[in-house]
């Protein structure tokens, strides 16, 4: 639903739900997913309804995804990194999953 107005400057690739996504270095993960045509990035915790980034500045927490096994990452505040593995966050956060402590 978004289109880039320019050629990719420094292309980087990462994995979203098993699919290879090409983004521009310096973009946020949320921007990269929107430009790739991803409509929803997580499912709501009660109804399971699809949700997508809303504020793009770190306020709304609608863009929560799982990055390299760690849940509750804000895609709009995370720069894309080559090789990162990203999954949708589904339903309620699983307390105890993904923590490293």
């Amino acid at each position, binding site marked *: 639903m978004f289109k880039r107005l320019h050629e990719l400057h420094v292309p980087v690739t990462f994995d979203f739900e098993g699919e290879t996504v090409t983004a521009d270095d310096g973009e946020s993960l949320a921007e990269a997913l929107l430009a790739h045509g991803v409509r929803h990035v997580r499912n709501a*915790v009660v109804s399971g309804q699809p949700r997508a980034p809303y504020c793009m500045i770190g*306020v709304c927490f609608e863009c929560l995804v799982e990055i390299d096994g760690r849940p509750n990452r804000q895609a709009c505040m995370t720069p894309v990194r080559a090789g990162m593995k990203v999954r949708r966050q589904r339903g309620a956060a699983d307390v105890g999953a993904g923590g490293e402590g």
Partner: protein
Amino acid sequence: MNLASTPDDHLTDLAIIGAGPAGLAAAITAREIGLSVTVLDEQSAPGGQIYRAVEDASGRARARGWAFNLHDYGVGSKLVARFRSSGAQYCPGQSVFDISADGGIGVLGPAGARWVEARRVLIATGAMERPVPVPGWTLPGVIGAGAVQATMKSAGMVPGGHAVIAGSGPLVYLVAHQLLIAGGSVAGVLDTTPHANYRRAAPSLVRAALSGNEVRRGLAWRRGLKKRVAVFRTGVDSLQIEGTDTVEAISFKAGGRRERIACDMVLLHEGVVPSTQLAMAAGAEHDYDPLQACWRPRMDDHGRTSVPGILVAGDGARIDGAELAVEAGHLAALAAAVDLDLIAPEEAARQGAAARAKIARKAPLRRFLDMLYRPRDEVLAPPDDETIVCRCEEVTAGELRQVAAMGCPGPNQAKAFTRCGMGPCQGRMCGLAAATILAEATGQSVAETGHLRVRAPIKPITVGELAALEGVGAPPETGPLLPTAPDDGEGP
């Protein structure tokens, strides 16, 4: 925070949270006076949202040129350049998750969490778009108009399909205007400014127009849009966004008639409100501003809050725009320097005179904008019971009215019953609407109803990150997590 008045190598004189116009200006002033300054910012580059990615010289520059108008672009570039050479310590990519009353500033970055200690703290966290709870606003494809502008600035992207912009405020015209220039699509502009607001604002128009060229600029954007956009409606209300898994259409009322436009994106905007999360977490008193319809930290003319040592400046304190945020940042830095005995009060008054004069000069414009763009009641408290207010926990307006009828007087009690405000955004999206709905339902004012209590950590942090915390100023292990014996004889 350490309020010791003697300098200490381990402490920074002034920690500034946020690198937007207010934070940058404060850093520049504080460094000129000779304070040591640490700027903590969540973004990867200085400029805040208004000057987002202003330094970027990559292939995205072309889109950025469209997303800034040339005047603002020049002002932002100069401000950031002055900041870069100011000698302030700049820490990008850092989220502040706590300001403890006796400890330090809890900072979370890619390398983990740490405590930063400062003798004075300036919260310059700016504004966020006012959440717009209308039916269907949780559907993918619904996004803030300001969010689209931010994406345009940093990533050079625009909506590619059929986008409708619905809302009120200068940003509605500006974003539509910028999208058209950049080659994006705008299927419609739905101006939700109530016609009655024009009558209320009219008496302030002449003085507002005389205080600068802002009014003329806004009118020019609006005229251009009327010519270039297929559907341009004014006095719009009763928005309903339709779709199952994604946006398919928006319907609305204009002039009493319901219309419907097929679209795949809806850009909502009803002005901006201060981001008060951090100031609230720090324990600063806040008051409800009925005209701007938002909470504001209580402060003196120089930004000192009710918490000793903590100051606020910029749109996080009061919505005044980037130009005045610079002046407020300058004044707050002077106040911090006075409080640290690093500048005489008379000298600070002299250095702040021009800023105070400018703020006074621009007051008529702010009054005009506040009157003209005050959100309609259905945005402040959605009348339809089915409308989701708390997006995280999916709590509707109807559920809040139900608990109000059961006797819940405010948002903190309603939270316990409904989970409203308990999700990851911690009430940033629902807090204002929830308080207003409860106020309506109980017959109290919003001020009496109160706001959600905000508690650290205000950013997601793992137990592992908390456990690994190092650095000076770490609160003792028997800190706020454990109950302490009452020492005032009144019990807990």
